[in-house]
């Protein structure tokens, strides 16, 4: 199984910048992320959260700056350490649920197949169903189940609770807490902070592609006697 190399932080970015033509999505992002945390990547839509996550997962290449996942630059090696849940649905139309499971099992050595099938059964999903035939909410939960069944070092969840009913939100948060590898770290990006606050250790505020602040949830509450959600609203007030 994957072990964190203690010589390096779990995730580090240095002067990370990403531009798309004229648009700067991320600018000069410098963060160091230790293992064993649940971190919220918070910011309004368009603040660069998804861009940052995609850069770390290797789906985008930086315009400038560096990324290291446990000392390694993004590539096939880091993809064995990183479990990424995008906010898109990404399975091929021909695939049945059990094909999706088989795919994960085939390519990811840290995938726990029985855990995944248990989760899917608990969701009431028939493995022989085609992925496309499931409701959108169920599809998202299936993807979440697969991602969380990996013993990864870094989980990147992009808006896992966006557009989901409150009961499902609780289910999703519970799934995350229950299944993540405690040696690793979970980074959850969202703009819905209220529901997720009690689950977070630390938060990173991202505004217009730049880091506005990095802090622990406790620190914020101690210093301001307010919830992170309230502080966020103040900071990002239009």
């Amino acid at each position, binding site marked *: 199984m994957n072990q964190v190399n203690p010589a390096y932080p779990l995730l580090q970015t240095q002067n990370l910048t990403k531009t798309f033509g004229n648009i700067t999505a991320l600018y000069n992002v410098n963060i160091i992320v230790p293992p064993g945390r*649940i971190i919220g990547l918070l910011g309004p839509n368009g603040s660069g959260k998804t861009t940052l996550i995609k850069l770390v997962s290797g789906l985008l290449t930086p315009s400038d700056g560096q990324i290291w996942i446990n000392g390694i630059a993004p590539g096939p090696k880091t993809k064995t350490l990183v479990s990424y849940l995008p906010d898109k649905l990404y399975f091929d139309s021909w695939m049945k649920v059990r094909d999706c499971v088989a795919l994960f099992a085939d390519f990811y050595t840290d995938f726990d197949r029985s855990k995944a099938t248990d989760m899917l059964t608990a969701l009431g999903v028939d493995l022989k169903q085609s992925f496309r035939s499931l409701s959108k909410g169920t599809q998202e939960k299936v993807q979440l189940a697969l991602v969380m069944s990996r013993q990864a070092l870094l989980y990147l969840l992009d808006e896992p609770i966006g557009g989901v009913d409150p009961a499902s939100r*609780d289910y999703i948060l519970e799934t995350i807490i*229950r299944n993540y590898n405690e040696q690793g770290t979970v980074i959850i990006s969202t703009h819905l902070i209220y529901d997720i606050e009690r689950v977070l*250790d630390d938060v990173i505020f991202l505004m217009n592609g730049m880091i506005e602040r990095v802090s622990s*949830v*406790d620190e914020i509450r101690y210093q301001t006697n*307010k919830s992170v959600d*309230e502080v966020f609203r103040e900071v990002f007030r239009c």
Partner: protein
Amino acid sequence: MNWLFTTDRPIYVQIVELIQRMILSGFYPMGSSIPSVRVLALEAGVNPNTMQKALAELENMGLLHTMRSSGRVVTTDQWLIMQLRDGIVNNYVENYFSGMLSLGFDRNAAIEQFWTKANGDAVFDSDLDATTETDFADSDRTEEPTEV
């Protein structure tokens, strides 16, 4: 157990208080073992790290001990528990007095009010049945200190 948190204070502080209640109320009796961090965290819907922090704090206070084989165990130190209860009761009392003070009652007047209300001798309810006691009277009776 209902894990309800407010948003203005760190969660782990609130968890500490809640678990203290659970110990005092006998939900987790003295010497009994409590569930693991993970299980508690799931139940409370919080980050395991947060739960861990709270439990560590309770250990610092001496209310919990870590046993190598059976996880965390509630203390059997009766004196400590009494201290804890006493501390909380003191808080209640002080809260009562400061609340009453804001209504214009000084300490003695507050005590008088207390006795009157607690014994069901409400000034306006003398015509009613003796059985109509307010909830207020009930909840205070169990923790009633002997004030002189």
